[in-house]
């Protein structure tokens, strides 16, 4: 029963958040779009206040036709896809396990969730040095124990190594959300199916999995958005070398390392479009949920 006065007060209360986010969205976006149509090389003396040369869609064409573009797209897809498959599959199994009665459930939960709270630079460096280092890493000790030649993981198998690191960080997230979803499953339904003689596999396939489908979709969408912009894990492990340069990292290099702002901005626009395609699906689900 909102009165007119309380409605305008409500608008006033919303204004700061809305205005700030509007500025945060529009100003950088407009600038990125603007730069993407310009030749802008700050290291060669281009200054935005002196005016920049308009080059049309040249940056967009050059970004896509550079030899680094397609490999970076493929690398991005491998990393995002690999992490999604690992975290969702293991997450479902782990969530089902944690849902069972056991002793010390609270402690196990804490152990499983912990990696999510480790800052990305720490987890990347710990894995890089203490586990994956070819001389002193734990993996190399283990390999030598079995008489195998140690592998320098991050240079010889950079993508699987990065996928392992990122999966370790995101598995807790997937597990926690899937566990929340599993706990809302009606246990009577499962018991009834068991009474009727449904095998564990049938119960999983016909009851648990359909029940989880929405949570799985949400995990996939949210993780995809975060995984598309994985940065620190690559920055401190390989620095984009050994075929680990993702689209995000390529744009970062264009913009800040080689200071080709026009080209990098065109890449940024591609990244924004890509993220928006994923975002639309996520927003639909979230939006539907708001109504109920």
């Amino acid at each position, binding site marked *: 029963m*909102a009165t007119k006065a309380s*409605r305008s007060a*409500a608008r006033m*209360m919303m204004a*700061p*958040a*809305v205005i*700030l986010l509007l500025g*945060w969205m529009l100003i*950088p976006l407009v*600038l*990125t779009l603007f730069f993407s149509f310009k030749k802008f090389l700050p290291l060669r003396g281009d200054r*935005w206040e002196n005016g920049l040369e308009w080059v049309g869609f040249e940056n967009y064409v050059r970004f896509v036709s550079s030899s680094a573009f397609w490999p970076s797209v493929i690398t991005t897809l491998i990393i995002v896809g690999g992490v999604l498959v690992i975290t969702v599959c293991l997450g479902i199994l782990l969530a089902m396990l944690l849902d*069972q009665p056991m002793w010390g*459930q609270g402690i196990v*939960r*804490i*152990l*499983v969730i912990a*990696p*999510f*709270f*480790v*800052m*990305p*630079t*720490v*987890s990347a*460096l*710990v894995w*890089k040095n*203490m586990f994956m280092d070819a001389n002193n890493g734990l993996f190399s*000790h283990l390999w030598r124990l079995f008489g195998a030649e140690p592998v320098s993981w991050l240079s010889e198998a950079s993508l699987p190594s990065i996928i392992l690191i990122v999966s*370790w960080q995101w*598995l807790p*997230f997937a597990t926690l*959300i899937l566990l*929340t*979803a599993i706990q809302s499953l009606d246990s009577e339904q499962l018991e009834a199916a068991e009474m009727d003689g449904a095998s564990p596999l049938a119960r999983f396939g016909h009851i648990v999995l359909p029940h989880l489908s*929405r949570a799985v979709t949400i995990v996939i969408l*949210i993780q995809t958005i975060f995984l598309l*912009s994985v*940065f*620190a894990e690559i*920055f*401190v492990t390989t620095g984009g070398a050994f075929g680990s340069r993702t689209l*995000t990292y390529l*744009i970062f290099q264009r913009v*800040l390392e080689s200071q080709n702002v026009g080209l*990098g901005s065109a890449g*940024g626009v591609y990244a924004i479009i*890509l*993220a*928006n395609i994923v975002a639309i699906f*996520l*927003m639909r*689900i*979230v939006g539907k*949920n*708001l109504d109920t």
Partner: protein
Amino acid sequence: MARATTTRRKIITTAAAWAIGFTIFFPILWTILTSFKTEAQAISDPPVFLFFDWTLENYAVVQERSNYMRFLWNSVIIAGGSTVLGVLIAVPAAWSMAFVPSRRTKDILLWMLSTKMLPAVGVLYPIYLICIELGLLDSRIALVVILMLINLPIIVWMLYTYFKEIPGEILEAARMDGASLKEEILYVLTPMAIPGIASTLLLNFILAWNEAFWTLNLTAAKAAPLTAFIASYSSPEGLFYAKLSAASTMAIAPILILGWFSQKQLVRGLTFGAVK
């Protein structure tokens, strides 16, 4: 008979869950253990697990050599400042959306969420340029504002879902009893909203503490928080595992402890109410 099978099943489940939990936690445990070793023990082959000469030397060395306290302080200011500022701006907004909803409330919430999906790298140079122009590159103020803006959608969403749970009938009852608007807010609403606000502060403090795109790209010597400090250990010279571990342990310990309190909020905060 049935009783015996359930007990046996429980034993197996417990063993499997503990083994997996231990494996997942192992890198963190190993880092903490290594931080108490000497550099020689840290890389010894075969590795030593518990039976080494425990030492606190690494912690002392890291503090002395790297001015660790300054990085810690930067992290506290940046994460704390951005979170508090974000909550101050978000509380009125979430409040009005929860209690005086209009036809556009849903659209505004979804639009706010959509700003969270903007890939940071897509707007890296404009933000970088704005920071240079304002003389805010490598400053804590810039990071406080940027991390606040990044997390603002999550903060608004979390608060909104918490405020939504406060039943409107209570407000009406207070009004019937003759409470003024001020009393209503102070004595009825605020106590009910505090748990939600606290949870929101907690989760967003953690998210801001661990943020590692803007903190790496917009700071150098002055304003660098712990994320950037740890990244400076990435050049592998000499024997440094124990010191890296000590520095890492100090950077993650406070957040691990806070994180254990915020498990539940994690689901709510990061799925935008889509999983309950």
